[in-house]
């Protein structure tokens, strides 16, 4: 697997090292990509652990490196608080935190939480953390020492994703695969937002116009709200296929969507209408999307069992980008 990766990644790295596409700041900042990966649940259970967990590829490296711990890993998150850079891994063994960029980890959760499906980090306080799990949302206000279950208002206990509002950190969003919920008091009480359909799979708040909320759904494409969740309508152009991932460029000018047998779709009007960007033939599903924050031409998708693919020309052409058998649940770029 690694030798083929080398072949695939070398041209990309050569391109990067030439500095032709990336702005100055990025070259000085030796950032690293992180891919959250899990494989077949059965194989992890019997103890073959080499191919799951968090993978990292630094700029300048040629390979994705499997960072310990090896555990089913649905998500990764990073934040800087003062001088401290903290990396979090949402995994089968719990929520992990690393203060040394993945060299060592500490599991912050105990036996009361099962697999961690997502983590949301407070923008200014390292004390406040939210996690979503198959048995609810949990919140810590002491940096992960203690956790409280925050489920008042939910109709089911499986919570797929939790996110913090971009303006108001006390405002939290969560999805339970039926609908989108919001808490305006840091998770103490939740209310369902009536998105108009059921089967909500993913959520995005527009990075520039924070009033725009988007949800990807199982059978109804994408729903959009222009008034922060009061009213919702169907976005135009998409088929009714399941949408599992939504991602925006940093400036919000391009938003991408993908899911089950959808290929990759793009919107250039903040999510109102969509056009197909890539059919992704032979890829049954895409779990995750990434847009380079400094180079919106560079897009990466994480697939269900076929690793990552990337485009360096804003979706015109695509190629394999590593971990060719991986189920890639999240892709991020974090500064060193």
């Amino acid at each position, binding site marked *: 697997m690694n030798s083929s990766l080398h072949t695939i990644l070398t041209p990309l790295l050569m391109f990067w090292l030439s500095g032709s596409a990336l702005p100055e700041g990025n070259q000085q900042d030796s950032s690293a990509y992180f891919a959250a990966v899990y494989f077949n649940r059965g194989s992890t259970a019997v103890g073959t652990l080499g191919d799951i*967990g968090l993978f990292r590829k630094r700029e300048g490296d040629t390979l994705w490196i499997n960072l310990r711990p*090896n555990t089913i890993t649905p998500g990764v998150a990073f934040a800087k608080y003062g001088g401290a850079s903290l990396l979090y891994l949402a995994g*089968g*063994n719990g929520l992990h935190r690393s203060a040394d960029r993945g060299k060592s980890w500490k599991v912050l959760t105990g036996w009361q939480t099962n697999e961690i499906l997502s983590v949301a980090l407070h923008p200014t306080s390292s004390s406040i953390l939210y996690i979503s799990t198959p*048995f609810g949302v949990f919140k810590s206000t002491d940096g992960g020492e203690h956790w409280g279950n925050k489920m008042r208002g939910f109709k*089911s206990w499986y919570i797929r994703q939790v996110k913090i509002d971009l303006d108001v950190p006390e405002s939290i969003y969560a999805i339970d695969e039926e609908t989108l919920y919001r808490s305006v008091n840091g998770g103490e009480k939740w209310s369902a937002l009536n998105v108009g359909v059921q089967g909500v799979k993913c959520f995005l708040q527009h990075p520039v116009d924070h009033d725009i909320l988007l949800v990807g759904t199982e059978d109804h494409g994408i729903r959009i709200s222009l008034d922060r969740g009061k009213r919702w309508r169907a976005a135009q152009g998409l088929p009714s296929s399941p949408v599992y991932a939504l991602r925006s460029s940093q400036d919000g000018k391009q938003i991408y969507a993908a899911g089950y047998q959808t290929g990759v779709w793009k919107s250039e009007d903040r999510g109102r209408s969509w056009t197909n960007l890539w059919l992704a033939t032979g890829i049954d599903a895409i*779990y995750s999307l990434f847009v380079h924050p400094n180079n919106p031409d560079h897009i990466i998708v994480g697939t269900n069992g076929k690793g990552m693919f990337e485009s360096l020309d804003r979706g015109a052409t695509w190629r394999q980008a590593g971990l060719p058998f991986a189920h890639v649940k999240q892709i991020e770029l974090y500064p060193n």
Partner: protein
Amino acid sequence: MKKIVFICTMCLSFAVSSNGQSPFEQRRLQLLEVASVERERGFQTVTAKLLAGRDREYALTMLDSLTSDEAIGGMFYSYSLIGCYLHTRVVLPDSLRKKVRSAYRNRTMYRGDTENHWVTYYTGLYLAAQTWPHQDGTEWFNGKSSSENFQESTEWLNHWIRMSARIGQGEFDSPTYISVFITPMLVLYDFAQDPQMKRKAQMMLDLLFADFAVEHLKGNYAGGHSRDYPEDIVNPLAAPSTFWAWLYFGEPEFAPWSEARFRPRHRGAWEPLFGAVSSYRLPDIIYRIATDRTKPYVQTKTKRVRNIIRFGAEKNPPVFKYTYMTRHYALGSLQGGILQPIQQHTWDVTYASGKPYNTLFTLHPFFSGKELAMFFPEEQKFLSDEVDRYHKVYTNPNKWNSSSPYEQTFQHKNALIVLYNIEQGAIHPHIDGFFPKNLEQRVVDKSGWIFCKAGDTYMAFFPLKPYEWIEEEINWRWRSHELKNGAVVEIGSSTADVSFDRFRKKVSASIPLFKNFEENLTVQYTTRMGDRMKFTFGGERVLNGKHVDFARYRFFDGPYLQSEYKSGIITMLYKGSKRVLDFNEVSITE
């Protein structure tokens, strides 16, 4: 010097014990002997070799390889490694002790997602944290200190024991997975320094063995099962539980490793070795319960559904089991529906036999992403493929293990009604029955009954709808393609019915009533003993005019094993003897 004394002591005890000890002592020493010459890599074989004083260098090389190989790890590794280490550390060189220690620092002990995963994970972590106390988080794979790991493991083990003793296991009565509940509890019993935890491990072992004992028939784990593999379902003595039955109950009489049916699938699986070297001894009352089949009896149990994460109103709804035990056969059932994903075995008759494939049952081969999504957090659309990759047969129309929302049962003693109401458009719209080819007789009677004879066991099977026979290597596959469907089953024996002909005559005199079945999904049947059963799919179970209420099921109810639901008090009874496990007081009284 210490090492020499240890080896001499072990060899001496081996030699002395093999001279005229109890049958259990003989079996455990036989197992130690056999496992000690095993060449395949495994923690149990390392343990056997070192404790038997055989192949020491080879055993050390094996352990070195197991602790060096970073491609393996996880929950099974964790508890097996610490078990092996604690049994053998006196004879290990310092270099290997350090390697064992570093295994808990350098590799992830993945916690997994099932009940047996968590039991093995937390048992391993508990004993490792106890073994290497006062170490900070940098010394552990999860960054937690010894005391944090010890506390977390203690809490979860207490939680699991409390739940198992009150509302039952989710992975209950599994002929395969019983191994990975018994073995960690044996290791915990042998090495927990806290007397409370040691006592709890002992009580859990008593409970696991008693739970097995009341459904034990000559080495077979009878009754419905939460989880099992198809190879074991069609050939019950091939299951790992047989090995435990042999060691602790003395049945079957053959040694499992010498049996062709056992060996291929479980090669290298020597978990019972930890039983052979344990100080735990099965209470005599459990042995008696497991082996005395002089009188037929009914045993009911309440268990729980595995943790439901989606599409449920309750996290762990109850499972109701009913098993009728005789000296010749056992007829057992779960109430039906989805109680466990993938590997459920809802009902069967298992009979004592010298031949393999000693069972008969039906199922609907159901699969769906939604079923899996009830229990696994991944994307519903891919789960069937994911599971198929590991369990191989999950989506197969011919599989022999399955839960199905379209299947329900009603059992009374040696009679059972199983009904199917398969949805239009279901992926596999048929039901299958397993009829072993080595039955002495399989006769289709003009009355509609199919009669089968296997030694002293007589089986009657009345299909409600047309069917076909498909010949396969070891069995006849009875298949019916009707969506609204079912069968009535009644079992007899040479003891109860004198002869097969007489059994046939008595049973064929009673034809199930199922008029307008397409509309009412109702069957009525009067057993040859005169009991009137009436069952409606999705509706009532009525016995002799009275509604059968599962809500009144006790935790255990039978002549040998009794407990009130959620009481935490388990009572074993055998003739004049009594043993009470009180999980509230953590006490055992006799």
